[in-house]
């Protein structure tokens, strides 16, 4: 756990200044002024324990820590922040929810607040305050956190995952630009393989990467797990077409993708074994910040996900909502902290520190400097607007969250692509698993 002090922040001032972060006295002055006029006054002696996912981009962590330190100084709230790997955030939040202790705030993945709607603090006032001030929330962000009219959490950001590819490999394969539709994308993957510069996408239990691209394939063919009324519709001709398409893609991939977790494609790409994958901007950032990978960084470009036969974007981007538990002793401090995080003076600088890894969920931040600082960043600014909620066209809720967490769609595609099951068998198993969840 990290205890934040003014000294901590000042020590980190150099790193923050390098990213253009509001540092030192200016940040504290802003925080103090904000605390005096904010709708939520932290309870005297408030102490917040915050769990978040472990940072992938160090400068983002620095920016986050600076915010935390400033909030602590301005409101007198003790802040204990600790990080967990992507996979461990949800189990630990679940344990806290179940025991009713241990955490005040949890910043997690997908539709985390929907997993335990009765255990979270309603954030309607915070969402209303921020939405009105910053041009409203994107549709998917709102759906991710809302249950009926209640906000179960605040959609802090979206971790945009987009096509990351080596331009030299595409050029060699005869593609002047990244394909914009499914047939073109398949042709490109085949051509990349023929040149021994393969693409590869996770077919294992990778919470972020696996779920993202396979839902994109599914939805791109007009297939969904459930319809608007949560009726299970996975067993459909559209799903069968999605399976066929995915198998054709899989045959062109680098071997080993059924074993991949969320870090596997990063490693393979940075090692020069992989030439096209879908990922957050972390691959590019890692290459940029490593002097030995200068050429790789220069050769790396990003592209939007190609559009499927349905003719519109069907992306599943990784939502990053924060929630406060309703058993916190300091609900006002918790709300104040969440609102403080998303104020312009903090948020744009924070996005800057994240270098494109985080994408805004409030429309006003579309013009944040990070998106024009490097032309290769731009596509990631689209993530929150182009994504569907994790439930697709179904109801966002604990059942949809369970289906994602249980890798129903990932397993269906993996079963078919690896030959473990035929089309009917793969769809039938997914249908059976969905019936179990939606019963």
């Amino acid at each position, binding site marked *: 756990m990290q205890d934040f002090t003014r000294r901590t922040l000042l020590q980190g001032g150099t790193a923050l200044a390098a990213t253009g972060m509001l540092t030192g006295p200016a940040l504290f002055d802003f925080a103090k002024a904000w605390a005096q006029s904010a709708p939520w006054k932290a309870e005297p002696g408030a102490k917040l324990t915050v769990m978040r996912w472990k940072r992938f981009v160090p400068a983002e962590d620095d920016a986050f820590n600076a915010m935390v330190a400033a909030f602590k100084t301005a409101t007198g709230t003790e802040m204990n922040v600790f990080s967990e790997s992507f996979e461990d955030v*949800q*189990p630990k939040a*679940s*344990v806290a*929810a*179940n025991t009713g202790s241990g955490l005040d705030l949890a910043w997690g993945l997908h539709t985390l607040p929907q*997993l*335990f709607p*009765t*255990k979270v603090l309603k954030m309607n006032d915070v969402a209303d305050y921020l939405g009105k001030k910053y041009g409203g929330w994107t549709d998917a962000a709102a759906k991710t956190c809302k249950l009926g009219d209640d906000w179960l959490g605040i959609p802090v950001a979206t971790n945009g995952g987009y096509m990351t590819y080596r331009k030299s490999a595409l050029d060699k394969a005869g593609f002047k630009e990244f394909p914009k539709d499914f047939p073109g994308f398949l042709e490109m993957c085949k051509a990349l393989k023929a040149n021994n510069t393969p693409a590869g996408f996770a*077919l*294992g*239990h990778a919470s972020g990467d696996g779920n993202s691209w396979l839902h994109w394939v599914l939805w791109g063919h007009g297939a969904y797990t459930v319809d608007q009324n949560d009726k299970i519709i996975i067993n459909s001709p559209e799903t069968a077409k999605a399976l066929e398409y995915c198998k054709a893609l899989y045959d062109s991939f*680098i*071997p*080993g*993708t*059924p*074993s*991949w*977790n969320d870090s*596997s494609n990063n*490693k*393979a790409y940075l*090692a020069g*074994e992989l030439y096209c994958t879908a990922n957050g901007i972390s691959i590019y950032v890692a290459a940029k910040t490593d002097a030995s990978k200068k050429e790789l960084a220069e050769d790396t470009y990003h592209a939007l996900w190609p559009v499927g036969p349905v003719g519109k974007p069907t992306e599943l981007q990784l939502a990053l909502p924060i929630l406060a538990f309703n058993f916190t002793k300091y609900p006002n401090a918790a709300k104040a902290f969440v609102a403080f995080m998303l104020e312009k003076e903090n948020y744009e600088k924070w996005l800057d520190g994240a270098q494109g890894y985080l994408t805004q969920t409030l429309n006003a931040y579309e013009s944040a400097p990070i998106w024009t600082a490097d032309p290769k960043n731009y596509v990631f600014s689209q993530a929150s607007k182009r994504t569907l909620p994790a439930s697709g066209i179904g109801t966002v809720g*604990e059942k949809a*969250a*369970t289906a994602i*967490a*249980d890798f129903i769609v990932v*397993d269906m595609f*993996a*079963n078919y692509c*690896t030959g*473990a099951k035929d089309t009917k068998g793969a769809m039938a*198993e997914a249908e*059976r*698993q969905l019936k*179990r*969840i939606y*019963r």
Partner: protein
Amino acid sequence: MSEDSAWTQLKHNRNWLGFWFMVPAMAFLIFFLAYPLGLGIWLSFTDTRIGRVGHFIATENYEWLWDDSIFWLSVFNTLLYTFVASALKFAIGLYLALLLNENMPFKAMLRAMVLIPFIVPTVLSALAFWWIFDSQFSIISWSLKHLGLINQNINFLGDTTWARICVIFANIWRGVPFVAITLLAGLQTVSPSLYEAATLDGATRWQNFRYITYPLLTPIIAVVMTFSVLFTFTDFQLIWAMTRGGPVNATHLMATLSYQRAIIAGQLGEGAAISSAMIPFLLAAIMVSWFGLQRRKWQQGESND
């Protein structure tokens, strides 16, 4: 005449004293063993989700599991994993124990070395095996390619058969020291005079093992294999760190599936049902190894008729 005080009774009545000495152990067993087990079984009959009190749904969770191909795949994987790993751990452990029981140079150092896999934290060794068997960066594939024996990487953790072999291998590596050292301790208790007498009677080395070592080692084997089977059957860390149950659930054990359903996906009731479904298998394993191997006649040195 007034009754004795509790303190006086404690001082003079051995039964009372014995009872109070037993209380901490009973409390420990009830709160840390019986209560969690009972709670788990109760949860399996409810639709409890993370953070939400469930309702009693009788055997519905079990009925769904009965018709769940992934659950049955996890049962198959668990049995395969347990059977193959335990058998090989026993064979290798016994061989090592017999070897280390002989007089040889650097005996103490060799015995210490055998313990190394047991000392390394499980998660660290699992991460090491994850790297060793990585589909892209395996040191094995790299070496074989550089030796010109293969043209492309072996898809260790991406192929269902290979993945099963890899996790079983990792489990064997980790579990052999426990078996070897425990059996070695058992071998040390066998009196050398028995071997001397048998040798004078013209017994061969095999006959020494078959009629002296093995019968006298049987009680230890029963204990060590009971624990080995239990540890293997309930293994979680190795699988979770190496494969998360993949590829396509080919290495999902009942323990990992239970964790995925209960904690990751939030369905505590269903996860508890999977965990509870392990109990009959565990009981059967205990019965087989305990009653099958530890026969009274053997302990008493009688013939095995």
